[in-house]
């Protein structure tokens, strides 16, 4: 009988709601989220329970203080994990589904702010990574132009990296726009 297991999943920053749903479904099958190592989600076997999982994002890790955790706990949210992404952090909360409020953000304004925080953080992160890769990209592009076809791999990787961040930015912008329209 296995008491823990790891599941590989990739959830980009704009799909945290899908990640929440994934954790909820696992708990319904008796696998409860315990920890995250990059893309490997660790689960512990237990009784099937209906838990609501919610993620919060803060762009500065030191904003997470005891006041924050105590307030969330008062509202019924147990903080079960935190995932640090450089200076930012994703807080993982869990609450038994018992009919009480199961959202962290209950009005459009604060939902838009959350999405805005995520978008801004990953925009700067993307600019940072792309900038420090720029020197390499220029060298690789030069090789490619000089006829070294293998350099195509490097150029493609660079374009892929930029593409990921652009996609993230566009997806989150679309979510914000939808909220602003009141849909």
């Amino acid at each position, binding site marked *: 009988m296995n008491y823990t297991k790891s599941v590989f999943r990739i959830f980009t920053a704009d799909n945290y709601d899908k990640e929440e749903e994934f954790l909820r479904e696992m708990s319904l099958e008796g696998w409860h989220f315990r920890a995250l190592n990059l893309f490997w989600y660790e689960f512990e076997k237990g009784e099937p329970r209906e838990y609501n999982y919610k993620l*919060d994002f803060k762009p500065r890790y030191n904003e997470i203080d005891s006041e924050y955790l105590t*307030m*969330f706990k*008062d*509202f019924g949210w147990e903080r079960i994990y935190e995932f640090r992404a450089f200076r930012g952090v994703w807080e993982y909360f869990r609450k038994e589904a018992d009919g*009480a*409020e199961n959202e*962290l953000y209950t009005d459009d304004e*604060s939902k838009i702010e959350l999405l805005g925080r995520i978008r801004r953080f990953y925009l700067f992160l993307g600019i940072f990574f792309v900038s420090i890769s720029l020197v390499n990209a220029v060298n690789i592009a030069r090789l490619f132009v000089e006829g070294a076809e293998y350099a195509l791999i490097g150029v493609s990787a660079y374009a892929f990296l930029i593409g990921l961040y652009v996609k993230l930015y566009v997806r989150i912008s679309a979510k914000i726009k939808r909220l602003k329209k009141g849909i």
Partner: protein
Amino acid sequence: MGAENDILTRYIPMSETAFYILLSLIEPKHGYGIMRHVEELTGRRISLGAGTLYGSLSKMEGSGLIRYIGEVNKRKSYELTTFGKRVLRAEITRITELYNNAKGALEQ
């Protein structure tokens, strides 16, 4: 003060969340107390989320609408400042006008 007027125009008209938070803080409360009070006032129609409330309290404190007055049971308690009362009063005036004009308007 110019800065205060900027804040005032930013908060009026007010969202229901902001209105009910400010209303609740006429008397000192902590976060969970605010949420329960608003649930009571609205017959559970509005149940403020932890994230929404935490964020609003930070912003309102930053804008000078509320002040931190100490800890009760390791929880921060807040109350309205004089400026906060002024902003709330302005909003109450606005919605009173709405109410007075709406009252009886559709009765045939």
